């Protein structure tokens, strides 16, 4: 069942892209900042897991325990770094022009890249997939690697958690209100600055989590953050910058169009995601679920 295998592959791509794009789009939604350094937080998630789990030669039982620990620790460390970044670098820039904020996050991207070289060097690193997540399942005759299924499960869990947080909790209500009218929210007694720090921290937590989850399927190296960032931006733009639900739909569109491209026109496959983006933006310039800027 090659068609179904390819569908699973497209959905794996979608899950992976959603994990990265969710944090990116949430930060834009809450803070109106396009965070170019998002890819760096993602890269750090993967690097921290690689340091904690060790080389690919570590014994399996020990590595499995370390893997699960690393999956929790890495995003938390990245989130702490995110909080610090927001407090020191971004806070003075709120209300300033977009270009300045963009340049600041761009500078951060380069700084984080340089720092990663100091800490982890330029060598390729690889994180072993724990034995229980190795191998593949056969579903209706189609092949689904267990780890790909795991990535999809995590993506669904993150999606549901984000929906619950934003739609069903007072915190989510405040985050949405902060986007609409931060002054009014502050006047009503909410600590908007603290809220912004919280949103940025959560966004970077998601980036770190994505890096930690995706790390074992990749070569972990300095360029990691830059590779994924472009695709994640496309997903966020298609979905409508700021909309987490939009990012989910955008990720599925990109994942499936990439799978279809490889299936039907491998020569032009790399153009498929851009064609998808152009089509969506031609019909809805603010993205599928985006709200036009006022």
């Amino acid at each position, binding site marked *: 069942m090659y068609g179904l295998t390819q569908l699973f592959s497209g959905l794996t791509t979608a899950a992976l892209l959603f994990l990265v794009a969710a944090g990116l789009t949430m930060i834009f939604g809450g803070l109106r900042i396009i965070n170019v350094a998002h890819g760096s937080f993602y890269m750090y998630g993967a690097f921290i897991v690689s340091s904690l789990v060790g080389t690919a030669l570590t014994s399996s039982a020990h590595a499995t325990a370390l893997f699960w620990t690393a999956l929790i620790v890495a995003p938390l460390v990245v989130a702490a770094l995110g909080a610090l970044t927001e407090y020191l670098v971004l806070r003075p820039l709120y209300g300033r022009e977009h270009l300045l904020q963009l340049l600041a996050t761009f500078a951060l991207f380069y700084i984080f890249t340089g720092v990663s070289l100091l800490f982890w060097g330029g060598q390729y690193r690889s994180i072993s997939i724990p034995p229980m997540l190795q191998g593949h399942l056969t579903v209706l005759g189609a092949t689904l690697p267990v780890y790909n299924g795991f990535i999809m499960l995590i993506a669904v869990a993150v999606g549901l958690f984000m929906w619950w947080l934003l739609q069903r909790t007072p915190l989510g209500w405040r985050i949405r209100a902060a986007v609409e009218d931060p002054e009014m929210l502050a006047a009503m007694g909410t600590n908007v600055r603290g809220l912004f720090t919280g949103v940025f921290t959560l966004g970077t937590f998601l980036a770190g989590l994505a890096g930690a989850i995706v790390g074992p399927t990749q070569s972990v190296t300095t*360029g990691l953050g830059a590779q994924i960032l472009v695709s994640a931006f496309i997903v966020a733009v298609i979905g409508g910058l700021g909309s987490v639900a939009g990012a989910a739909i955008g990720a599925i569109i990109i994942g499936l169009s990439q799978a279809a491209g490889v299936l039907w026109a491998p020569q032009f496959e790399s153009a498929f995601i851009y064609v998808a983006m152009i089509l969506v933006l031609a019909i809805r310039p603010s993205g599928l679920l985006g709200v036009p800027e006022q």
Partner: protein
Amino acid sequence: MNISYRCKIGISLIASLGLALFMSGAWAASYSGVVKVGLSTSLSGAAASLGQSGKKGIELAIAELNAKGGLLGKQVKLVSVDDQLSPATGVTNVRNFILEDNVAAIFGPVSSSVAAAEEGIAAQYHVPIFFFISNDVDLTTKHFTKYAFQVVPNTYMEPHAVAAYMIKKGWSRYDTISPNYSFGRSTVKQFLAGMKKYGANINIVGQQWPKLGESDYTNYIPAILSKHPDAVFSGLYGGDLITFTKQAKGFDFFKKIHNNFYALFTMGALKALGKDAPVGVIAANRAPFYAIHTPGMSLFSTAYHNKYGEWPSSWAVMGYTAVQTWSQGVEKAHSLAGNKVSAALSGATVKTIRGPIYLRACDHQGDVREYVGTLSQKINPKYGFRVMDHVYAPNPKKIMMTCAQTLAMQPH
């Protein structure tokens, strides 16, 4: 004071001669007893591991040269800078090396596009440049200058060596997967040309062109398997190959195609993959220290391991041979002057840790070997990674372009 006309002429002559001497690198070098050489390579970014490793090989070669008394009685000093994989930065670095550091030789970059940009500048100032990582065949054909030398198997030789190996297997249905840029495209093209040249009649059942630096191959892997190829030729390497390998394992890819998969599994990739490196697949390496059985190589690899606490990658081996090549050129020419060294090396055979290398007069491409083999069952306990078994290193003459071919492509 009245100075005669003759006196004025004399003073200005001495002054200008002095200035000219002062400005000349030869004077500065001989005065200080030091000769500088430049290394502009990728020390940061995606190709940093290659650049850093090559630099270590060069540093070791220079340290050993200096320990033996240097070259023509002078100590050799290395100036190294990062080119950030950018041709513009590479050109600036090379120009600074020549105009400010008065270097006697330049050791080239990782990327062939950077190398192509630097080659013309080096020739303009008559400084020899040695390519040991970048390996585009264009560097010795379309862009050829008499100051450029290449001591790495080029983009024509490598896929031809793989073709010479794979043709013996008798497979007929081939799929290819290669990064969608100049190297990826040309390596597939040359592999297919090689198969044809050696007499194979193969059927291409599918071709995949993921972008360079792709992080997700999950769509490509089932696409290849669906075509049921006998074998897969890939132009993937480095980080891309690691990512592909890890994701392919989830699909049982290597088992399903009976390990009939070729890729450039370099030491960096094999070290990172560890036990995840697929056993039995076909690998190539441009200079694997463990498969080159010369006394010089065993001395070098031990010295390298002692100095850096790791085994030398092919980039380090080739960096070391690049320095050996230049230093023998200097000794042969009895001069540091670029034009004399280049002339001495053209058509010469140099002794290196990889064995003798003949630098063809027609294109200055070294007749270096490419090594093809299968990945070992066990991780080598001494080195800590899977090495290549049953290594096949065809005679370079078999896999090189003929001089007639290269001459036809060179600028006239």
